[in-house]
């Protein structure tokens, strides 16, 4: 087996030994407690190098540019050189914060994203546990169905769900005997419909990941628990959840990030934000106010605000985890 990376790693091994005998200042603190793999001054950076090069060039630098753009008057006319760029300080931010609609959209986004995250995680985890309790064939069937839902392009998934719940053409109202009840007219029923679609297309990710995590738990542990006659809930609560915490952390954070930025589902299913904008969420709002008409300065400001809100949520979550004794 000669995977890529071997060539790079071999010489480093030699140098790392040298590094260990003469630790550099920065890493001394950690070297005091040597671990089998860890503690080498710049060794981790070698492993990180490819990732850092790619991320630095294609994510961090553009994000830096984004911050820059947010303090300029920067529309398509500036981008394509039709007009000079002009520094406007915090004007773009003032525009964003000065729009009262922004605040109601922000609140709706937070609540809607929270509902989506909780539902997705609950469904995903429950089905992951279910997968471990069934034989190969039903497992494959459920996995394939879930994968299909995951793989469906968001715009198609949203369209199909809309067809299913259409008051005139959809089968759901027929089956439920709802006549021509419209799901998208009321604010909450429209949000509910979108939530169902979001959960449908994002629970598979949680399910597959958590299932992979459960597979990584030594089977003896699970068998022992099963032999003790523990209920599924009990097994989850006291055996699986603690062992899966790193995976669950990631899944939660990712779901928060994605659901907060939901766009296509709202855009397609509520016709761009619902009756009189009642179903607007932050990303759709940003699109309509800024990106669709190429006001990148304003859009960048909304982007920065989005980033800060998400960062705050994530940091609070990580801090809570840490308080529970889980470290990064």
């Amino acid at each position, binding site marked *: 087996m000669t995977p890529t*990376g071997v060539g790079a790693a071999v010489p480093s091994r030699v140098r790392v030994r040298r590094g260990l005998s003469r630790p550099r200042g920065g890493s001394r603190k*950690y070297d005091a407690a040597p671990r089998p793999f860890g503690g080498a001054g710049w060794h*981790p950076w070698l492993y*990180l190098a490819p990732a850092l090069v790619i991320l630095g060039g294609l*994510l961090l630098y553009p994000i830096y540019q984004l911050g820059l753009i947010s303090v300029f008057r920067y529309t398509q006319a500036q981008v394509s050189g039709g007009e000079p760029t002009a520094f406007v300080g915090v004007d773009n931010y003032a525009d964003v914060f000065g729009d009262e609609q922004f605040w109601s959209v922000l609140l709706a986004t937070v609540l809607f994203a929270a509902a989506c995250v909780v539902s997705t995680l609950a469904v995903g985890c429950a089905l992951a546990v279910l997968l471990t309790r069934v034989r190969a064939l039903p497992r494959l069937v459920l996995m394939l169905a879930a994968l299909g839902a995951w793989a469906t392009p968001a715009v*198609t998934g949203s369209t199909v769900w809309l067809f299913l719940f259409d008051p005139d053409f959809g089968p759901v109202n027929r089956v439920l005997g709802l006549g021509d009840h419209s799901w998208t007219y009321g604010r909450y029923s429209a949000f509910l419909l979108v939530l169902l679609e979001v959960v449908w297309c994002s629970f598979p990710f949680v399910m597959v990941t958590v299932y992979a995590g459960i*597979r990584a*738990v030594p089977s003896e542990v699970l068998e022992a628990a099963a032999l003790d006659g523990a209920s599924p809930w009990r097994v989850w609560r006291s055996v699986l959840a603690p062992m899966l915490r790193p995976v669950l952390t990631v899944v939660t954070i990712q779901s928060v990030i994605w659901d907060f930025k939901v766009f296509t589902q709202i855009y397609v299913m509520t016709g761009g934000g619902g009756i009189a904008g009642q179903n607007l969420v932050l990303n759709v709002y940003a699109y309509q106010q800024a990106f669709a008409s190429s006001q990148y300065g304003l859009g960048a400001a*909304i982007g920065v605000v989005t980033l800060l809100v998400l960062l705050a949520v994530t940091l609070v979550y990580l801090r809570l985890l840490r308080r529970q004794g889980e470290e990064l």
Partner: protein
Amino acid sequence: MTVVNLVRGFVRRPGRTAAEAAALVIAVVVAFPLYWMVLGAFRPAGEIESGRPRPWTLAPSLDSFRRVFGQQEFGRYFVNSLVVAGSVVVVSGLVAFLAATAVTRFRFRFRTTLLIMFLVAQMVPVEALAIPLFFQLRNLGLLNTLGSLILPHIAFSLPFAIWMLRGFVKGVPEALEEAAYIDGASRVRFLWQILFPLVLPGLVATSVFSFISAWNDFLFAKSFIISDTSQSTLPMALLVFFKPDDPDWGGVMAASTVMTVPVLVFFVLVQRRLVSGLAGAVKE
């Protein structure tokens, strides 16, 4: 597992039949919108709009698929999509595996900062990054090439992949690592021959994710492939059917069906890895 074990398992778990029934029912519910999509692709023209939502069609038609496959350079788009998604899966998987090992198995300065940075990168709306990325790719001379899709997709799937693999790398007991060294294994051997297979289920889950997100992407393809349609990807073939005044739903459903199939094939190919995972490996 011996036969005795199997029997015992069955007796001890009478709930399994119920669980399997539940799994199948849920699978049907989850698959129903997919069925509706495929059905929409086979419905003859006008039936979607006919106002009679029958869960079958009496006159299945291949017309919608003909419109999809009859598009200019459809095969070319398909191959391009495969190249993009394949490169993204392989490169981001390997790079993320190394990086995840670094942040899990080492303690060093800025480790936490770095981890947060990885997350931050995903918090910005992609729309907002399209313009800075555009200039960056132009400076690299990559516009209008598949590279302009592959690189950003790697960059966007890396942070997630690193975070996710981190959880899996962490799950590998340190005792195993010590044992490997006592047995005389080198770092490289441990990394690739012991650690790598152990985190494979996680890597598979990650690869499914990055495959789907690269495969389904519209935005980058719309923004960075400007003048050379021979470098376009499959979703472009889907977008043709979205006409503002008169969308062709049959075409949309057929194109989506065509797009979903390769993902399912990819998944069937990798899913055995997902199932035969760490559990067996640790026991040996």
